[in-house]
């Protein structure tokens, strides 16, 4: 599969990974391009030991982790947690008519996911993309036992965060 075909197929998936790490739209676009570059660099070495989706997700998460872990000073004013708090306040200050119920729930879910520790965030988002425990393990390097525990704990945190904001 060519680079263009791969990016075209996985673009929505990559964009969802990006949205779980970055709130700011301009930075999302920047991170998306960085991830696409990494996918392009790594694609020739794909050996079909895992599915292409798992391979692309692994690259996307690693690049996103680099982005948020090493670029904090550049984006300190736009750090995800501050942004998420602002976003939640903005959402909560609007009337129910201003935002559709689904949009509001989605924003709350995204804000809650962004505030999770990175391991939790990865396990949750990969699970939401329909990956099995084994595939999540291939991306994160965690063992299958840890993934079960982490997913349960993350689910509780997400439920609590989304309910608290209602």
């Amino acid at each position, binding site marked *: 599969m060519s*680079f*263009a075909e791969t*990016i*075209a197929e996985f*673009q*929505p998936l990559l*964009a*969802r990974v*990006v*949205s779980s790490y970055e709130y700011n*739209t301009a930075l999302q*676009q920047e991170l*998306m*391009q960085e991830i*696409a*570059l*990494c996918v*392009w*660099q*790594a694609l020739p*070495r794909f050996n079909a030991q895992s599915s292409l989706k798992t*391979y692309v997700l*692994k*690259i996307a*998460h*690693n690049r996103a*982790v*680099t982005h*948020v*872990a*090493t*670029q*904090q*000073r550049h984006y300190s004013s736009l750090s995800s947690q501050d942004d998420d708090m602002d976003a939640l306040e903005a959402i909560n200050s609007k009337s129910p008519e201003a935002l559709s119920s*689904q949009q509001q*729930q*989605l924003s709350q*879910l*995204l804000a809650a996911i962004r505030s999770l*520790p*990175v391991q939790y965030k990865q396990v*949750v*988002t990969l*699970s*939401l993309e*329909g990956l099995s*425990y084994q595939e999540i393990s*291939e*991306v*994160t*390097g965690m063992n*299958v*036992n840890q993934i*079960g*525990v982490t*997913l*349960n*704990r993350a*689910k509780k945190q*997400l439920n609590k965060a989304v309910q608290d904001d209602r």
Partner: protein
Amino acid sequence: MIDKRSELSDDECQSASAPEQLSEQFASLWQSQSTVSLNIEALEAKYKWFNVKQKLFFIADWLALLPFIWVLIYKRSELSFFWLCFFIALGLWALIHTIYVSWLRRYSLFYDESTTKSYLDVLKNKLDNCRRIARITKIASWVVYPSTIIVMLLADSPNSSNLESPIDKLWFCFIFLACTAVSTVVTHRREQKFKQELSSLDDWKHTNSAQ
């Protein structure tokens, strides 16, 4: 078969009887989000240029060795023992530097697809290596440029007619001192940048492991 509940607490064992995947509601919300899009044609053009650029850098690194090879092969008989040693020492230093830089470029051309867990350690090592290289290059520029000035002014130059007038000597000193200053500023900035990124990475890892 692996027992998925072997590391669960009692409370978690009870909740583990619920479906292991996140709720359908979260999943459908997650999939419904609008996403940013990319101009794939522009991306392809950009990345092809990136590839060409990296190859040109690689070739330029090795072409920089040609003057040393030319001097040592074609001008060897005209050099005194002192100048022969000087060019061999500079050539060796340039060769080691070129090999190291080429090795680093290899990492910029390929991407490490290890799991996130091991990737963080690899990333830390990469950043630390880049910081070290910036520091080594900074120290090398303090040694190479000033020592070249001293050697060229005090020793018999290989072609003495080049630096006979005081103005030539002043220009020579000025150019090499400017090279030292520029190299120091650039490498110092790079060293500080990688230091900052390493520090951010450590803080971020600490924050995430503490949560």
